[in-house]
């Protein structure tokens, strides 16, 4: 049974077909269809209950690479992991990476993913030069922002609904090595965070903050944390060698290991970790992909799974909104050990359904606790909507349909581009 990363919802598919070659007709399986890459999204954007999943991880061939310009064309099932291993020794790096390298190019396009460098680099779709889109009527569209701007804006961030993305052409960014220069600093309140962030964003392409969402800071309110910033190291070669740690959560614990007790302890310890106020060299993997070091980390929540709640709040209400969200979460006692806060840049996103937009984005994980979790989400939804914000479809298993429609006002124009034989659990849920 194929599930998404948070293991909610649990659904059955009528057929699951591995795609092995590009340029072939779509398989004759029960309609509607949906492409599924590495299953790292949370919720049901990558699921198609009762219908067909097309597994794309076998569509992972390189097609062309120009080492002079850094322009790469590859099949859409190529993982960022494979891309990184190829590109770094040749002096190139994906211009935008999400928090895991276990995603496919197609998934990165379909969710228009963002990274810790959004304030400077924009989202993944900003660097896509073109893509091939196979439609169920047999058409194969070569889509570029110039030639087919409508198709491009629909397919970037289009949740895989406009057809099968077969190939992606991507502009890579030059780097000198696999290493980064990074510093980190504790902040005792959100006010301090905003100060730090404003001061750091201009000079540091990658920035992110971890928030302790259980223990109050110096001002008596929740909002203390650790701010980190980094840039690619300007060294041709770094002397230190790096060995990737290979840890794994081997099996499902009978109960979620994430509970009030472990969370409070974890947050205390995490906040007390050594910080390095002066920049030091660190390999890009632990900095950009800390959780990739622990295989199957999603198992710590046990069989029942968990939710991720990621919202964006527009600039005007971001400061107050984030504080209110954190206060509400702290009061509920259902803290998250992965609370991540980051500000987006002002560049307009390339996709009609793109999530990134000017403002601040807060991401939190919550163990599945039934009614209590639902009630908390309803309160958080109200705050997000009050601020005029939105939730991230790639991380969502439960947002109410009206919330999607107000958060993504171009959804109706987008719907014209949806392939009549493609759909997903998410799409049916939010358009029903």
């Amino acid at each position: 049974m194929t599930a998404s990363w948070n293991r909610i919802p649990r659904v059955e598919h009528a057929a699951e077909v591995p795609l092995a070659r590009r340029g072939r007709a779509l398989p004759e399986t029960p309609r509607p269809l949906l492409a599924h890459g590495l299953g790292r999204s949370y919720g049901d954007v990558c699921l198609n209950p009762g219908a067909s999943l097309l597994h794309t991880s076998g569509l992972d061939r390189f097609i062309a690479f120009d080492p002079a310009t850094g322009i790469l064309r590859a099949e859409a099932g190529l993982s960022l992991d494979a891309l990184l291993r190829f590109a770094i020794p040749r002096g190139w790096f994906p211009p935008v990476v999400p928090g895991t390298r276990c995603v496919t190019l197609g998934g990165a396009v379909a969710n228009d993913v963002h990274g810790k460098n959004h304030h400077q680099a924009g989202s993944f779709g900003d660097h896509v030069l073109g893509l091939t889109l196979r439609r169920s009527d047999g058409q194969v569209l070569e889509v570029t922002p110039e030639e087919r701007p409508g198709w491009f804006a629909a397919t970037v961030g289009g949740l895989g609904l406009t057809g099968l993305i077969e190939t992606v052409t991507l502009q890579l960014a030059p780097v000198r090595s696999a290493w980064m220069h990074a510093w980190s600093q504790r902040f005792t309140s959100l006010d301090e965070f905003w100060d730090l962030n404003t001061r750091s964003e201009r000079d540091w392409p990658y920035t992110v903050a971890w928030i302790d969402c259980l223990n109050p800071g110096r001002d008596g309110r929740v909002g203390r944390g650790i701010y980190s910033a980094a840039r690619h190291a300007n060294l041709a070669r770094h002397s230190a060698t790096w060995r990737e740690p290979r840890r794994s959560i081997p099996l499902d614990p009978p109960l979620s290991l994430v509970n009030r007790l472990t969370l409070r302890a974890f947050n205390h310890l995490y906040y007390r970790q050594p910080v390095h106020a002066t920049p030091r060299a660190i390999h890009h993997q632990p900095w950009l992909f800390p959780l990739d070091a622990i295989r199957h980390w999603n198992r710590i929540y046990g069989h029942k799974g968990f939710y991720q709640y990621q919202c964006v709040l527009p600039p005007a209400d971001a400061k107050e909104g984030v504080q209110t969200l954190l206060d509400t979460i702290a009061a509920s006692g259902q803290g998250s050990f992965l609370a991540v806060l980051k500000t987006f840049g002002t560049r307009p996103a390339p996709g009609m359904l793109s999530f990134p937009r000017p403002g601040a984005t807060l991401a939190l994980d919550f163990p599945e606790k039934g009614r209590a979790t639902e009630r908390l989400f309803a309160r958080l939804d109200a705050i997000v909507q009050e601020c005029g914000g939105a939730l991230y479809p790639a991380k969502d298993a439960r947002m109410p349909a009206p919330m999607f429609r107000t958060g993504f006002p171009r959804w109706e124009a987008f719907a014209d581009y949806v392939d009549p034989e493609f759909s997903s659990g998410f799409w049916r849920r939010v358009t029903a």
Partner: protein
Amino acid sequence: MTPRKNPLQRIVLFGATSAIASAVARELATPDTQLFCVARDGTALQALLDDLRVRADDTDGTRIQGTTADLADIDAHAAVWQQAQQALGEVDAVLLAWGTLPDQAACDASVEATLDAIHVNGTSAIALLARIAPDFERQGRGVIAAIGSVAGDRGRQSNYAYGTAKGMLATYLQGLRNRLFFHGVDVVTLKPGFVRTPMTAGFNRAGALWAEPEAVASGIVKAMQRGREVAYLPWIWRIIMTVIRLLPEYLFKRLKL
């Protein structure tokens, strides 16, 4: 650790677009290697060559080459082998990797289907081995590897046409290994277990015994470098098949395997 005695720098892959051979090709595609890939489907071959050329920094397409051929057609072998030799000069290694997974029920219903399955998976491979062996004998070095199967170790009702072909191939490789040993050539019999490839897409492939093509491929490359005689991939299959071979026939015939 056994030393890596066989350099793998000029390699011919027969059946190169199969999932396992493609994974081997990816592992071998570096700026120091020359590959010649033979496959039946021209579009699939081109996609593979493009991929390998990017991986091997072969921008002008001189080190990664290939041709289309239906290797079940024995008459085509001589020309293909000549083309490969011309492209690579001396050949360090060959890997025979084409095959099908025939439907045993269809074979049971048809003599032609049975013989066809044995031809594609067994006889045609033996024909190619017989053709290239004298060149390796003359050359006095190199490695010949072919993908057999654990299914060749014992006949089972669910796939004995396939098993017969792979068993026949394994016996031929055994004899060839013995013959070429005296000429400094290694002959490697590869016996993968269950691998998640398009060939096995119809099976329920959950469970610890199912391996990824990449893992099997890296085992193949190591076995070829070291000149291993028989490599079970992953190694656990050596133990499993030992047990299965030891079951007495009067008991084995009663099993529904």
